[in-house]
């Protein structure tokens, strides 16, 4: 699990997100401290995925800032990347690489010092160890999703950003995910996830994105 022990805070202030000339949300604030979890809720198009991408640093917000322990992240893209794990809609699994190779690559890329022990533990945790030699192309959708989630354990990171992580997972795997998240929080990690409410995390806060939908039309060009 994560070796991060120090108390940390992660905040976003006044985020504005523009996609394809459309304002998705404006003036969004959020803050999270070690051990906390947050659900992103809202209808399709309210910007849950966009927000997670902004928080990951993939998408530049049109305005607003992100801070980690009260320090602005804007210029420290790589430092931020070292602290986070992002799980998006795609599973990023190469069909010709084996399960083990797929995971080992991402583990080492995130943390070159991460050994095979962490990879093995991650695979065992998500019930994929017996499939370690199987090429990615043979995996089912649920297995691919589990392999993607196994990245969370293959290398340590404080902040997990999970976009609909429970898609394609069966009940037992959702339970595993819940347990993994609980351990991560117990170790001082943070989790932000968007989901259709089939994951239960005790004590998680909720952020309703439809509250931040702009109320007047954008007139950039007026």
């Amino acid at each position, binding site marked *: 699990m994560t070796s991060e022990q120090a108390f940390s805070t992660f905040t976003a202030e*006044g985020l*504005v997100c*523009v996609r394809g000339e459309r*304002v998705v949300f*404006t*003036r969004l604030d959020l803050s999270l401290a070690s051990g906390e979890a947050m659900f992103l809720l809202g209808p399709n198009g309210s910007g849950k995925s966009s927000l997670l991408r902004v928080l990951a640093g993939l998408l530049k917000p*049109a*305005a*607003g800032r992100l801070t980690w322990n009260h320090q602005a992240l804007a210029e420290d893209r790589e430092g931020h990347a070292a602290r986070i794990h992002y799980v998006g809609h795609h599973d990023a699994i190469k069909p010709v690489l084996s399960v083990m190779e797929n995971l080992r690559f991402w583990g080492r890329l995130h943390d070159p010092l991460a050994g095979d022990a962490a990879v093995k533990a991650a695979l065992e945790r998500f019930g994929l160890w017996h499939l370690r030699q199987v090429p990615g192309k043979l995996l089912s959708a649920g297995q691919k999703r589990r392999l993607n989630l196994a990245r969370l354990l293959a290398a340590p990171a404080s902040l997990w950003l999970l976009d609909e992580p429970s898609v394609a997972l069966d009940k037992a795997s959702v339970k595993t995910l819940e347990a993994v998240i609980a351990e991560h929080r117990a170790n001082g990690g943070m989790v932000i996830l968007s989901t259709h409410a089939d994951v239960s995390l005790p004590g998680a806060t909720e952020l309703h994105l439809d509250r931040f939908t*702009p*109320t*007047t*039309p*954008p*007139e*950039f060009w*007026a």
Partner: protein
Amino acid sequence: MDSLASYFSMGGYAGYVWSAYAITAVVMVALALLTWRGLKGREQELKELQDIIPGRRGRSHDGVAEKG
């Protein structure tokens, strides 16, 4: 008249000289004209749009603009 004809013949190179000038004129005029027509078209389109949505002209502030 003779001098005029000899002027237009461009020392026997009339075809080259005049077509160079002609094609230049055509391209430049077309460029200016097409751009002008495009601009007028957009102006018209914008006017129609703004007529459909009443009250937009007055509201120049929104959440984004105030942020800066």
